[in-house]
C-alpha cells in the first residue's frame, strides 16, 4: 500500500528521468544533434514560462501580458551574478554560483512583481493587463540604457551552464510545486477569485492578498526561467524579451488550454517545436504557423487539452485518501448528471 503510494508519487519524476536518459543516449549515439537538444531545452523553458503565466491568467483569472519582462529581469539578475559578481569564482564553485544566480534572478523578478502587483492588483478588471504591458516595455527600455550590463548591445560571455539535466530538474520542481499549490487552500482561493471575485470576497478571502501571492510566485518562476535561458544561449539583450516574446507565452497558454498545467505543457512543447519543423517552408513558415493557430482557436477555443489534466498533475479527493474514498456514497469523478 505505502510502497504503491511512493511509486505513484515519484513516477512523474521517473518520466522526466527516463526521458532524460533516452535523450542523452540518443545524443551520444548521434541520432540527435545539438540543435535538437537546444530546441528541447527551449521547449522546457517555455513550459516553465507558460505554466507560471497559467497560474496568473489561467488559475487566478487575472491578465498578465508582459511576462517576458519578468523573464528578462531573471535572465539579467542571474547573469550579473554568474558573469560579473562571481566572474573569477574557482572552477568548483561554478554550480553553486549558477544556482545562486538562478535564485537571485527569480528574486529580482519576484520583487518587481510585488512592486507592480501591489498597486495594480488592488484594482479590479483589466488594469493588470495594461500595467504589465507597460511594465514589460519599461524593463526593456531601462535595460537598454544600462551601460554596465551591456545596454542595447546586450550581455555576452554568460557561462553556458544550463544543460538538459538542469532544465529538466527545474521543470520537474516547478511543475510539482505548482500542482501542489493549485490543489491547496491557496490554489482554491486563486480559483475562487477567477470564478467569482465577489463571492470569494464574501467567503472571507482577502482577494488582493491572494492575487498578489499568485502574481509574485509567477514572477519568481518566470525569473527562474529567464536565468535558465540566459545560461543556455550565453548571450542576452533587452530586445530578446520584447512584447512579441510575451505574446508567444500567451499563445502557448491559450492554445494549450488555460487553467490546466497539462495545457501549458502541450501548448509550449508543440508550439516551440512546430516552427522548427516548419523551417523547410522558409519565409512561409510564420504564415503557416499563424494559420495553424487560427484553426486551433476556431475548432478548439478552450485549448488543445481543454481544461483536462494528466493524473499526476492533479490531486483528486480519491488521492487524498490514497486511492479509495471513505464512503460508498460518493459518485467519484462524475461530472455530469
Amino acid at each position, binding site marked *: 500500500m505505502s510502497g504503491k503510494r511512493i511509486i505513484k508519487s515519484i513516477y512523474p519524476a521517473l518520466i522526466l528521468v527516463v526521458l532524460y536518459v533516452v535523450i542523452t543516449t540518443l545524443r551520444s549515439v548521434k541520432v540527435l544533434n545539438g540543435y535538437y537538444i537546444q530546441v528541447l531545452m527551449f521547449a522546457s523553458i517555455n513550459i516553465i514560462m507558460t505554466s507560471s503565466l497559467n497560474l496568473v491568467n489561467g488559475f487566478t483569472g487575472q491578465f498578465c501580458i508582459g511576462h517576458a519582462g519578468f523573464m528578462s529581469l531573471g535572465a539579467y539578475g542571474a547573469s550579473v551574478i554568474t558573469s560579473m559578481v562571481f566572474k573569477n569564482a574557482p572552477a568548483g564553485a561554478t554550480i553553486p554560483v549558477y544556482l545562486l544566480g538562478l535564485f537571485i534572478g527569480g528574486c529580482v523578478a519576484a520583487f518587481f512583481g510585488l512592486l507592480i502587483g501591489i498597486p495594480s492588483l488592488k484594482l479590479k478588471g483589466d488594469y493588470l493587463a495594461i500595467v504589465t504591458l507597460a511594465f514589460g516595455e519599461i524593463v526593456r527600455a531601462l535595460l537598454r540604457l544600462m551601460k554596465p550590463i551591456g545596454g542595447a548591445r546586450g550581455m555576452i560571455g554568460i557561462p553556458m551552464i544550463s544543460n538538459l539535466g538542469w532544465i529538466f530538474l527545474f521543470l520537474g520542481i516547478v511543475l510539482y*510545486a505548482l500542482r501542489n499549490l493549485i490543489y*491547496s487552500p491557496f490554489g*482554491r482561493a486563486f*480559483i475562487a477569485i477567477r*470564478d467569482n471575485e465577489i463571492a470569494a470576497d464574501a*467567503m472571507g478571502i*482577502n482577494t488582493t492578498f491572494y492575487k498578489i501571492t499568485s502574481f509574485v510566485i509567477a514572477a519568481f518562476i518566470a525569473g527562474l526561467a529567464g536565468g535558465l535561458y540566459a545560461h543556455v544561449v550565453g548571450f542576452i539583450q533587452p530586445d530578446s524579451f520584447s512584447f512579441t516574446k510575451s505574446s508567444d507565452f500567451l499563445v502557448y497558454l491559450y492554445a494549450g488550454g488555460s487553467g490546466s498545467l497539462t495545457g501549458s505543457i502541450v501548448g509550449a512543447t508543440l508550439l516551440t517545436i512546430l516552427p522548427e519543423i516548419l523551417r523547410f517552408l522558409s519565409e512561409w513558415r510564420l504564415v503557416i504557423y499563424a494559420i495553424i493557430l487560427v484553426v486551433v482557436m476556431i475548432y478548439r477555443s478552450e485549448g488543445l487539452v481543454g481544461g483536462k489534466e494528466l493524473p499526476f498533475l492533479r490531486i*483528486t479527493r480519491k488521492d487524498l485518501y490514497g486511492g479509495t474514498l471513505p464512503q460508498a456514497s460518493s*459518485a467519484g469523478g462524475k461530472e455530469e*448528471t
Partner: protein
Amino acid sequence: MSFLEITNLSIRFGGLVAVDDFNLSLEKGELVAIIGPNGAGKTTIFNMLTGIYKPTTGSIVLDGENMVGLKPYQFARKGITRTFQNIRLFSNATVADNVKIAHTMHNNQNLAKCMIRTPGMRKSEVELDRRVIELLDKLGLADKADFLAKNLPYGDQRRLEIARALMTEPKILLLDEPVAGMITTELEDMARLVPQIRRDFDVSIILIEHHMNFVMPIADRIKVLDFGKTISEGTPEYVQKDPKVIEAYLGGGYTQNGTA
C-alpha cells in the same frame, strides 16, 4: 445590547435614498425576515451588512465591535456571511471545492507547506475533506461532492450556497431569497432546512424573501420595507394583519393562503 445592533442605517445613491433609517437588534439564535416589494432596499441592506456598500450614515455593531468601514472579507472573518440572490458559485470548481474555498480563512498551512505538500498539510486536507463531506451530507449534497458546481440543478445550487456560507463558521447567516425560483417541493425542503440549520449550527439568521408561505412559519420576527423605509415590524401574525403592510406590499386581495 443585542448581539447584532444596527442603528439608523441609511444609504444614498446620489439623490436616491435606497435605505432610510433602518434599525435592527438581533439576538443570538434569532431568525428575522426582511420582506418588501422589489426595490424596497432589502438586498442593499445585505450589501451594507457584508461590506459591499458603505452606509452613508448609521452603525453596525457585532458583539460590541463596530463593523462599518471593514472590507467584505473582514465581515466574513468577523462572522457575517451571506448567500446571493443571483447565485454566485465557483462554477468551474467541484461542489466539495466550493465548500473548501469557504474554509480558506481558517487555513493554517503556509505557502511553503502547501508547495511541498508536507505530511501535516496532507493530513489537514484529509480532515478538511471529511468535514466538508459531513456538512454536504447534512444538506443532502454529499453524493454530488465531485460534480462541478455549474452542473448542479438549480435547487442544489441554492443549497450549495448555504453549505458554502456555513463552512465559514458564521455567527450570523444572511440568506438572500433562498427559495427564489424554486418549485413547491424544493420550497418545502428549504422550509425544513432553514430552521434545522439555525438549530444545528447555532447561528442567527436574517432572511430576505418574497414567498410569504415560506417566511411566516419560520420567522421569529418580520420587518417590512417599502421604498427604503421600515413600514412595519413584529411577529408574523402581527405583520400579516397590519393594514399598512397589506396596503403597501401584500395588496388588497391578500388572503391567508395566497402568495405575494
